[in-house]
């Protein structure tokens, strides 16, 4: 049974993430260490709980993108303090994602939301930005041993870039190494099937759920 001090700290961690208060998260994470709180518990029952609330609020548009980005920042600041204290860091991590907008596409808001929600939900995210070349996605995924490559495209003229990454992976014998997810304005379930992607979602929150399911399926 946890004592009140711990309970309050966990609540503070969670609420500070929801309040997008980076300084408060850092302070609470440091206090958690000083008081000897289990860092696994601090993350799972503090930071992550707050992150889940943030994701749900964003999904209902009770908060907006600016809040989401700041909450993800706050979450990351807390993780930076607590994760180094955990020897089996991988146990906590839901997965590693390499994300970006495909070659020729310079739109980033959808991808930013996705990256923020993945981060907030305990994924390690390597966001490559916009107009990312096919080989860059793959090089980075190999370098960080990614579970998922997440490809965003906003334009009907740029979704071909999603197919290019999948084709490149297939033709270089690397397709089975990664889960490939696609999303963005013109992508549909039919397109996902046509190009042989593993997952697709209409919204970023849905993408997190799909990612968790795909990772679980792959690991099992």
């Amino acid at each position: 049974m946890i004592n009140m001090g711990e309970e309050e700290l966990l609540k503070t961690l969670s609420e500070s993430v929801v309040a997008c208060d980076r300084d408060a998260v850092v302070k609470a994470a440091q206090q958690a260490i000083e008081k000897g709180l289990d860092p696994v518990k601090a993350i799972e029952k503090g930071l992550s709980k707050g992150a889940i609330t943030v994701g749900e609020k964003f999904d209902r548009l009770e908060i907006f993108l600016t809040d989401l980005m700041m909450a993800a920042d706050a979450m990351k600041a807390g993780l930076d303090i607590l994760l180094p204290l955990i020897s089996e860091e991988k146990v906590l991590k839901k997965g590693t994602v390499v994300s970006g907008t495909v070659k020729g596409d310079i739109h980033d808001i959808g991808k930013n939301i996705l990256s923020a929600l993945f981060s907030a939900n305990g994924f390690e995210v390597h966001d490559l930005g916009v107009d990312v070349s096919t080989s860059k996605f793959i090089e980075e995924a190999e370098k960080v041993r990614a579970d998922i490559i997440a490809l965003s495209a906003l334009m009907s003229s740029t979704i071909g870039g999603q197919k290019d990454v999948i084709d490149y992976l297939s033709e270089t014998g690397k397709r089975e190494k990664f889960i490939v997810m696609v999303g963005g304005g013109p992508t549909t379930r039919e397109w996902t099937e046509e190009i042989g992607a593993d997952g697709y979602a209409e919204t970023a929150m849905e993408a997190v759920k799909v990612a968790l399911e795909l990772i679980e399926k792959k690991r099992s």
Partner: protein
Amino acid sequence: MVVFLDAVEKALTGKPCSERDYDLKIFSTKLREVVKEYDIKYDPENLVSSDNSLADDIFKAAFDFYCEVGTYCKDTERIIKFDENEIKDRLRNSPSRIVFGEGVDAGTMVPRKPEDRTPPWRFVGAGGVAVSSEDVFMGLVENYAKIPIANSITTPTLTRVNGIRIRPYSPLEILGAIRTVALGREAIRRAGRPGLPIMNSIATADSAIALVAGLHPEYGLRPTDGYMVATLAELKTNFDLLNRACALMSLGLPTAAIFGPIFGGYCGGPEGTAVVTVAYHLMGALVYQAGWFLAFPIHIKHIASSMPELLWVASVYAQAISRNTHLLALYYDYTAAGPCTKMSLYEMAAQYTAAITSGVSMETGGIAKGRREDYLTPVEPRFAAEVAYAAAGMKREDANEIVKNLASKYVDKIADPPIGMKYQECCDTKTGKPSRKCLNIYNGVRKELKDLGLDLSRNEREY
């Protein structure tokens, strides 16, 4: 007066800033401040507002906001800013009328005011939504041009050249851009209205190089067609977009700034989205030297603009612009539902009634969220143009009741809308004639609108 080169110089010498700081510390912070300072509040009971002071406050808030935050240039990572006098001067000198089209098909776009009886500019067609083949492209554009009430055409976007999917910045994009122009002009000629202007030139060209390639007069575009330069969310640009503006301005072509502020994104809620929509008009006038303006505020999650909050945004931004400037402003809609559904017609009727009675003109837009290839027919643009025509002159109070009634018919279905049918499923692909089912839906909703007080048959007597 600010000229194009001034904006380019400012992009090179403006205050350096990371994009993240611009988004989170400058844009979002200042936006919250002006919304609070001017006490701007969304009113779900008045989706079409009759409050002139609210419209004027939104304009003032947007003016202060844009003076402070300017436009972010992603390539130079600097902020392009203008002072109060530069903005006022540019607004004063912006065109108040532009002639589009040739011969008997020519028309003049003029500014409007709230409740104005002046018919809105009716820019009709696909709104740049993608099609799978040149045959579908031709069939649609020919039938858009046959809509009697259309005074300009918005073509679809080609996604393939000889069956190969287009890639941006590739030769395929250049070929696609050229074909879009040549096919569009030919389809309009086949409809018997050769002078009708194409005003989303060139839909298939995302990059400046493809745009410039398609501009060669050999392919059929004219100085009396309309041209567009996009912006990046929110209030951002880059060199490729400035290159487009530069090429078009150098040829003296009538250029629109087009912008889709995102409700739920950095704009926040409806109040911030309304302010940012107005600010984009200032950006377009100053950074791109645009002469006409196309706004499509859009929902971050549902990729549509028919929900109540966005109907309010359409109404109040349009009133802010039309009451305080003479800018040539148009509204573009996104529906959640697809073609050949009652819901898509309700969504269009609500949006255009709100925007037109608030003082702007219209382009028909992204049906089925604009995301599905070939989910287009000539019926929805015709219907939308008829609504726009009929709504001109209506009192905002009356429009509000109609809009609220229409929204109540579909609001619960926005999260899971009917996707409707493709052009090939709805229409005879040889003649473009809509199916009986499609026409029954169209006629049924027209009758419902008449019962609500919006009589589309008025159009048949007057145009």
